């Protein structure tokens, strides 16, 4: 493992505004990345004040750079630490610049893994490393699903399917030339390639507009009908976006709102009041709410404390009946919110809390508020910010998303190269190679697609068999 061929990079500090953000780079390219980023190779092990620059010389940020050459570093490889201002956007720009210089986004836990494999961490720490990779991989698997919410995920699904279909066709033509599938003469290939590149462009555009990368940490609001979830959401977003109505069950759509809580971008998701219902539309809403819950980094579990202890416990029971399974697998931070504080003289809801904790022990935090008057919201913001910045995944959703964008860019470059091979050289096998690579990159987001899967699709799509 001494000389890993690739250089990895990641934001090493939790997301959030203020303070300092650190990007760590490890691998043989670290020195050349440093030179390109700040114009000269920094003195080893000496913090230097520098300006980080784009390729065209434009300044990105000012900060400190630290260079650890050779094997005398945390990972046992040349390491670079880039200390910038901690804002999400600046850190992302810095990371993009480092990646454009040849590093690839680190997998979760990869720095520690390299440190261990290069004998920089002793045997006693090995167990901890394994635990870290384990927990981080679970978390990043979750954040992968999460960061691909909604439209983005659907687009990516479509794109993958188009790519697979095209590959099935081309590979079938290559492996079964006697089946009279002549893709080189097939005009529709060009059309299909164009569709794929425009899908890629489309997805990439959404991403760069910030819908994906900067949506931040996702926050779901769940609870029984009429617990005041929509009022809370309106409070949080300070806009009346949800339909608030005294009749239970008025929120049937998933509403989203972007907000920034103490420097951390948060995507707020209000979900339909979850309850057993025979109304088909509302049932659909409940299903979607459950899906949102599974994807969220933070979930607010909202109850109406004015119902009194028995009322709250019984509402909790109902809620567990409908979302219990989603809660069992939920890996994010769960915050219990006792709403409608203004309707009770003392915090009667708290009497219920002990009982709720025994029913639902995953609850990490609890806050009493009034969405109507705004009482307690300050405290709620604190808890959310803390949960977002500190308690979420070790790797953070930003890194996961940055990896996805890199994968998309690579895939896009491959598809375009394939298009050129087809147009200029009529080279079918090179088009096939580019598409294989493109799928490998997309697969980093969507999961494996093996050669055997491909053959399976060929056999089910074409009548093969000489």
């Amino acid at each position, binding site marked *: 493992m001494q000389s890993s061929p690739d250089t990895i990079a990641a934001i090493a500090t939790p997301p959030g505004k203020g303070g300092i953000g650190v990007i760590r780079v490890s691998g043989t390219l670290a020195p050349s990345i440093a030179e390109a980023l700040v114009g000269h190779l920094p003195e080893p092990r000496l913090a230097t004040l520098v300006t980080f620059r784009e390729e065209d010389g434009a300044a990105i940020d000012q900060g400190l750079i630290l260079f650890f050459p050779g094997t005398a570093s945390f990972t046992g490889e040349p390491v670079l630490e880039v200390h910038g201002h901690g804002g999400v956007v600046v850190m992302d720009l810095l990371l993009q610049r480092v990646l454009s210089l040849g590093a690839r986004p680190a997998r979760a836990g990869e720095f520690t893994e390299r440190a261990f494999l290069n004998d920089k961490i002793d045997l006693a720490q090995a167990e901890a490393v*394994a*635990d870290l*990779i384990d927990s981080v991989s679970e978390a990043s698997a979750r954040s992968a699903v999460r960061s691909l919410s909604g439209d983005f995920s659907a687009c990516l699904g479509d794109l993958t399917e188009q790519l697979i279909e095209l590959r099935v066709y081309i590979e079938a033509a290559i492996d079964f*030339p*006697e089946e009279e599938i002549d893709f080189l003469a097939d005009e529709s290939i060009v059309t299909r390639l164009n569709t794929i590149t425009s899908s890629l462009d489309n997805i990439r555009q959404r991403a760069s507009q910030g819908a994906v990368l900067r949506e931040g940490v996702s926050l779901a609001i769940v609870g029984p009908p009429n617990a005041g979830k929509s009022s809370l959401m309106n409070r949080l977003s300070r806009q009346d976006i949800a339909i608030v109505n005294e009749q239970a069950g008025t929120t049937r759509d998933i509403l989203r709102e972007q907000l920034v809580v103490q420097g951390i971008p948060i995507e707020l998701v209000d979900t339909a009041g979850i309850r057993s219902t025979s109304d088909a539309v509302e049932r659909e809403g409940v299903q979607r709410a459950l899906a949102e819950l599974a994807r969220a980094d933070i979930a607010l579990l909202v109850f109406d404390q004015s119902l009194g202890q028995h009322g709250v416990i019984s509402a909790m029971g109902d809620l567990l009946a409908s979302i219990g399974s989603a809660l069992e697998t939920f890996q994010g931070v769960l915050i219990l919110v006792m709403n409608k504080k203004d309707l009770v003289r003392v915090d009667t809801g708290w009497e219920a809390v002990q009982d709720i904790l025994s029913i639902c022990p995953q609850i990490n935090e609890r806050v009493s508020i009034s969405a109507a008057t705004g009482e307690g919201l300050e405290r709620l913001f604190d808890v959310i910010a803390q949960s977002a910045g500190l308690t979420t995944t070790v790797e953070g959703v930003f890194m996961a998303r940055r990896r996805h964008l890199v994968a998309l860019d690579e895939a896009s470059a491959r598809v375009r190269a394939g298009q050129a091979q087809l147009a200029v050289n009529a080279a079918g096998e090179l088009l096939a190679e580019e598409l294989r690579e493109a799928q490998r990159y997309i697969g980093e987001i969507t999961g494996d697609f093996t050669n*055997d899967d491909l053959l399976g699709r060929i*056999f089910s799509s074409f009548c093969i068999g000489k």
Partner: protein
Amino acid sequence: MDFDVIVVGGGHAGTEAALAASRRGASTLLLTQNIETVGQMSCNPAIGGIGKSHLVKEIDALGGAMALAADAAGIHFRVLNARKGPAVRATRAQADRALYKGAIRAFVEQAPNLRLFQQPVDDLLIEKGGVKGVVTSSGLTFHAKTVILTVGTFLGGIMHVGMQQQPGGRAGDSPSNRLAEKLRALPFRVDRLKTGTPPRIDGKTVDFSALQRQPGDTPRPVMSMMGTPADHPTQVACHIAKTSELTHDIIRAGLSRSPLYSGVIEGVGPRYCPSIEDKVVRFADRPSHQIFIEPEGLGTSELYPNGISTSLPYDVQLDLVRSIDGFGEAHITRPGYAIEYDFFDPRDLKRSLETSFVDGLYFAGQINGTTGYEEAAAQGLIAGINAAASALDLESYTPDRSEAYIGVLIDDLITLGTREPYRMFTSRAEYRLVLRQDNADRRLTEKGRALGLISEQRWTQFQRKIALIDARTEAMHAHWIQSGDPSVESLLGQALTHEYSLADLVRRPGISLRDLAEAAELMWPETEVNEQVEIDLKYEGYIVRQREEIARMQQYVNQLIPVDIDYDVIGGLSNEVRQKLNDARPETIGQASRIAGVTPAAVSLLLVHIKKLGGVRHRQVTAHA
């Protein structure tokens, strides 16, 4: 009698195994039920094809017999995918069965250190977990340090024609049931597979004027790097026929008496080589299917109708054949049949093809769940190389996925196993642009030389070719074409703005090295050399990229996983991943990473765990690993 290597079975795996072992100097015994069937082509009379000619040419580069025999017996040669680029190009030869068998038989008879003996094998001698020899049906015992089983479809073979079944390993040959029973008693995972063959037809009863004629290619390709078209016997044409809706109606009416569709057959058949009844059922909207009418040989009028493999009853077979244009009066000489047979889960094998449970026992060919002569021969070759290595304490060898299709084949088998008869396709090879049929010799000849597998003649010829390739590549970079050169500019169809090297110009679309050399008035007649230089230059960017990918993989490839690793104690692995690793028991991290569902995080956990165990680090995967 004591041998270094005993090979059981005289098919394509068995003969290559015996020849490779004997070439390495091992005293070798080839045991076969019937000497007359040594080198027999049991199914279609063809060698090569997509993915398969890659294997054949690799076997050739490692000194094997298959390509030479195909050149000696080929009566119709074609290059497939000629327009789709060199990496996916393939060579296919129709072979005269008798000539092919004769050529293989001659190789076997002329090989040093190799004895041939006719007797079915009923049992293995196993002591202390290691194989010591074999016992034949008449009770003869042969001792050996290693035994290679290449028994094809003969283990528990059952042939089906309609609702009738009979035991058999191939039409006219009996199965090896006693051996099958003995093997089933060992701890190997065993399962059933199915394959099929079409009815054979007497060419005298066929009206060829109703068929589409398909001549061989001109210029005629060759299979072996040592071969020339002068080695080929008389060439003949193939034909293409088509089924009709009438054919499909006949098949549908007969389905109730099909062993496939009445549940009699339990084995899994290949998806890429379905029976005609499968095609008609699964692709019901296709009005017609192609049938390739292949001659069985020069000395016979029998035809092999490729594409109508079937196990329908004989009367349905006759009706369906006669419903095909040109076959109205056709006479069937041998009915088609399906055959079910035992195979052993290849995940119980090591990279050397030695079994995990019995030391010195090797499996090669259909016994490992593959189909095809070429796949069988490739495994035979590797098993022969490694059994000889084990007996004589020589270097062992299994190519890596990045070196050869043979490596892809063996790695797929031992890592992923198979649920259907495994066939090679180019899409299985991730390094397809590097692993081409045209450069098999450049990839493997030196290795073959080091292993003692190839002749002086081949080595000399190879060295000459390499020297020429190097010199010509250099010349391509050194020879500059000036702006205004009339013949080159007319070839390019545009004026040159400044001077260019030939290497630059040959990378342009549609420009071949041959035409360029002619325009530049260079006398470069060696086609094979030009081809290599041209592909190297045109593919350069891709080759560099694939080599980088190979280098990335390499750090895993050589990382061994301890044989006795306990996946259950590795924290953090999901149950699914654990199950997959337990089933596959990968030998290296590289193999583990290729198992579907084994995530990069799981690979990280494995690496960390192995290091914790005491650091099996980057040892080379060697002979006795």
